[in-house]
């Protein structure tokens, strides 16, 4: 009985506490920078697409909302021919971001993507691509990867030694 009165009093004291909720459309809530919201495809600092169409995000996605197809440009760089995310399926778990080896796919703190027609929730590559590097400003996959592409041969990546000829490595 005493504990009931105590809880009554404690709940009453909440009348003088600060409210935890905000009046949403007028007052925007604070969203931490790592909030998982809308998904974007970022570009590297040179302005090229980061995505190498490895399909790891599509594999990691628990609801299979990512679809893409690989293409290759004249320099030998891989890029997605199309990249499609069905946001009416997406659960904003961030698995794709964790799976991505090139920091291409990122979740940003924007959640206001309501649509009247369901088909409009399907975002194509031109809807997803942004003109910036997102959360990782200096990362450029092809500049650190050992892969040879047009304009960068083997051994020319950052922190990479020139390739050794194993046949001349005699004791």
């Amino acid at each position, binding site marked *: 009985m005493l504990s*009931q009165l105590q809880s009554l009093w404690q*709940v009453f004291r*909440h009348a003088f506490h600060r409210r935890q909720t905000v*009046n949403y459309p007028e007052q925007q809530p604070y969203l931490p920078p790592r909030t998982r919201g809308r998904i974007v495809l970022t570009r590297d600092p040179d302005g090229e697409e980061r995505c190498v169409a490895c399909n790891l995000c599509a594999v990691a996605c628990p609801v299979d909302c990512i679809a893409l197809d690989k293409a290759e440009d004249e320099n030998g760089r891989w890029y997605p021919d199309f990249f499609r995310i069905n946001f009416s399926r997406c659960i904003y778990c961030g698995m794709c971001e964790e799976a991505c080896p090139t920091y291409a796919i990122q979740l940003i703190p924007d959640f206001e993507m309501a649509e009247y027609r369901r088909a409009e929730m399907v975002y194509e590559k031109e809807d997803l691509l942004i003109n910036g590097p997102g959360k990782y400003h200096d990362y450029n996959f092809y500049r650190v990867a050992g892969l040879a592409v047009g304009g960068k041969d083997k051994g020319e990546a950052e922190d990479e030694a020139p390739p050794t000829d194993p046949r001349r490595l005699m004791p």
Partner: protein
Amino acid sequence: MNVGIALLLFTGLLLSAALLTWLERRLLGLWQDRHGPNRAGPFGLLQPVADMIKILTKEDWIPPFADKAVFVIAPAIILGATLMAFAVVPLTPDLWVVDLNIGLLFFLAMTSVTVYAVALGGWSSNNKYSLLGGVRSAAQMISYEVFMGLSLAGVIMLAGTFNLREIVLAQAGLWFVVPQFFGFLAFFVAGLAESHRLPLDLPEAEHELTAGFHTEYSGMKFGMFFVGEYVGVVVTSAMIVTLFFGGWQGPWLPPLLWFCIKTGAFVALFVLLRAAIPRPRYDQLMAFGWKVLLPLTLVNFLVTGAVLLARQGN
């Protein structure tokens, strides 16, 4: 009896019950650190209007397996009975619907009638959840009815009348809550159980019986149950004020304002109870009623009688 005044008072009561749906949600919001409905009109005051429009335009569906006549009558009974119970409450020294010599008995009788609404509504729905809710409400209300009447025996003995206006007048010197504190406690719990409000809302019990007795109800028939419940809250608060807290009496302010302030405070307490106290298990509720509150009221009854007799003897 003036018909105009009666209509005015009943309209006021229904309006305050409608406003209470808004007030309750705002207060719950306040105590749960959120805003509550604040969009429709200033402070969300037009929320009851919006709810009313919504509930009136909803499909008013009677399930084909229900007992149609009883199904329709049940919600009318609860609203009618609670409104009738309000008829005997004196708001000021000269403002009431009817001044009955047996006002208190009339109030107890009318609150007992509401159990029919709940039990019949649950039974006629022909649904297991509804039936369980109806059975629970019948058992709960019968057991709480017993000491609801007994808890008021002390007040009746002190005032020497069943007339509610004279009971209020008898509290001019000292509110009955002081000599009848245990009677007040028992009546408060019984009133809570009678209006089946949240700590004791076992007939509804969303979590175990979906919505209990009104599972099958929709549209305005559900609205009648809903409004009936809120009218019940206002009437119970008004009765607590009338019987134990001196009714309209108070310094400086006009009597009607005093009555409204006191009633509003008890309505807020009802909401606070909803916000703070979890629902007891069904057997706990029954055991509490029969094993704690009934003996308490009986002892209170006996002690009051003994004190009165001893005073008369001197």
